[in-house]
């Protein structure tokens, strides 16, 4: 069974092991250690780590399409944000009449821009199950339609990258508009509770953190499952020699579409878990620069090695947290410098370093996945 296959391979076992160990460790340190003890992990840190894990999942999603399908999506932030908005709308409805205007139905921003009734696309988001389905469906559908159009007409390489960028840019502008009914620039915020748990308690935060950990694990296994399956090898085939794959009788566009949609849904889940933890979702998540940044995480961690994406995402964002605190005026230098140095001196990213140490007969076929003399994008 394709989903269980990854569980037998060592790298996945190691990854899951470390992940669960880390989550468990943080949880314990948070619960057991007393406030102010040197080893105590504050709720702040827990949420922070939770955020990193969301980014990690997002990065894995991007690596799936970029690393194994050769599709450089500069618009994955859009799927992330859509998932986030779906969750945000649910949380918004959960506020109920506790908003500043105490309106039982309308969110505050609708009240003071005096909308008189809830727009149709807000219907149903008061029900958790519906919202959670939308978390998958909204990004999934967008990816499906967009991908269908793009792959069917064989848009490839940089052209694809740029129109994904156009996609997320257009969505950003759209969501900035207040007429859209998503709170415009202010976005959705001031959340109270999620499925009955108060968002402002440490317990809930811990819960969300653990949930994110699990989501990352599941997402990782799904991606592994795909890339270690025959389909995974087919997608690598599409990446390296699309025409050839067609002549072997594979419908390249469907392969691309399938993987793209899966990836988009994972991104959506990441977004959905991200929103309750940071407490706000706003159109800036759609900004093209954010999407590019995601790609940078992946490249930095090591393309076409899913765990590399995880390392990259966590590393970059940890660096961000530290730098913005330690050297507020100069942190962009550090970050920019990091990007440059890694891309120039670590073409295979950090994972590349790890692999160098490995022996050649490593049973993991995708290790070679990063070996690609002329990949499609080279035609840019």
């Amino acid at each position, binding site marked *: 069974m394709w989903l269980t296959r990854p569980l037998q391979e060592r790298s996945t076992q190691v990854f899951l092991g470390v992940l669960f160990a880390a989550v468990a460790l943080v949880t314990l340190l948070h619960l057991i250690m007393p406030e102010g003890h040197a080893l105590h992990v504050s709720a702040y840190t827990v949420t922070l780590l939770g955020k990193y894990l969301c980014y990690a999942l997002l990065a894995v999603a991007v690596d799936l399409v970029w690393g194994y399908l050769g599709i450089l999506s500069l618009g994955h932030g859009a799927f992330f944000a859509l998932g986030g908005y779906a969750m945000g709308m649910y949380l918004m409805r959960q506020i109920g009449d506790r908003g500043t205007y105490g309106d039982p139905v309308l969110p505050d921003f609708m009240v003071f821009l005096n909308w008189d009734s809830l727009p149709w696309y807000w219907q149903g988001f008061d029900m958790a199950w519906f919202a959670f389905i939308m978390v998958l469906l909204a990004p999934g559908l967008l990816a499906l339609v967009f991908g269908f159009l793009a792959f069917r007409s064989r848009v490839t390489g940089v052209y694809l990258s740029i129109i994904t960028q156009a996609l997320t840019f257009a969505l950003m502008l759209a969501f900035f508009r207040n007429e859209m009914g998503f709170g415009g620039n202010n976005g959705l915020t001031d959340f109270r509770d999620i499925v009955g748990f108060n968002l402002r308690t440490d317990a809930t935060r811990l819960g969300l953190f653990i949930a994110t950990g699990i989501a990352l694990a599941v997402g990782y296994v799904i991606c592994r499952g795909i890339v270690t399956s*025959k389909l995974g090898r087919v997608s690598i085939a599409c990446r390296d020699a699309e025409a*050839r*794959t067609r002549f*072997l*009788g594979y419908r390249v566009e469907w392969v691309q579409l399938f993987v793209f949609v899966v990836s988009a849904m994972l991104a959506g889940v990441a977004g959905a878990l991200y929103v309750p933890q940071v407490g706000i979702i706003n159109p800036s998540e759609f900004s093209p620069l954010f999407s590019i940044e995601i790609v940078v995480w992946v490249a930095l961690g090591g393309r076409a090695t899913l765990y590399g994406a995880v390392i990259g995402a966590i590393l970059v964002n940890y660096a961000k947290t530290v730098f913005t605190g330690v050297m507020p005026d100069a942190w962009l230098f550090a970050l920019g410098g990091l990007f440059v140095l890694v891309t120039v001196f670590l073409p295979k990213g950090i994972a590349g370093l790890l692999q160098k140490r490995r022996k050649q007969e490593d049973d993991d076929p995708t290790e070679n996945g*990063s070996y690609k003399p002329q990949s499609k994008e080279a035609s840019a």
Partner: protein
Amino acid sequence: MSVFEQLSNRDRVFEFLAPEASPVDVRHGPILYLEDVNVSFDGFRAINNLNLTIDDGELRCIIGPNGAGKTTMMDIITGKTRPDTGSVWFGSRHNLLTMNEPDIASLGIGRKFQKPTVFEALTVFENLELAMAADKRIWPTLTAIMKAEYRDRIDEVLEMIGLKQLRDKPAGILSHGQKQWLEIGMLLMQKPRLLLVDEPVAGMTEQEMERTAELLTSLAGKQSVVVVEHDMGFVRSIARQVTVLHQGSVLAEGTMDQVSNDPEVIKVYLGEEA
């Protein structure tokens, strides 16, 4: 003893080479039929009223100077290029002009490219696995499991193309000749009714060429094979029927001797060769 001795004794038939029941209808005549095909790339006429018929099980060599339209012809047959006019039939049932590459491929037309293209990031084994005739839709592909019989089949082909030792090495590290072989191997895995082989021996050593020749001839009869080649020696060694293309249309057709004595041909082509 080498595979090729086995191959050469005619009564030995590899079951995986035996064409399985295919939808192609060859009861009345040719397996491939091109009529009045024309293609032009902004002004330049690459194919010019091309008429060509390949009979079932035939081994046909196609020669012609550069720019004669050999590769373009293959592109048309495999659905990569659409002709401006004309008709292309596979058997008497399938109009290839209405199909796309994957459909055509799954109908049983395999193609080997002029420039050998294998999946360099994948191992030799995986290359063959992907080529293997199977249900190639998304879900079956995702859930496919490597059955023992498949593995055996792949190993047999590996044996045949002499890449057994390199089984688990990425195809990227293969030599040019090895890549050629791997690609032929992939063709075999597809179990095609019609093989289009574009310059199979380019960059091969003498003895590699020999092998190739043996293999191709052995295939003929069970499958139809169309070989495009420059190397006259090689063509002579395998050719029964030879077609000479010139400026996008058939210049001459017949056995090697007939062709090579045809004054027209000598003028435009062999003349230069000799």
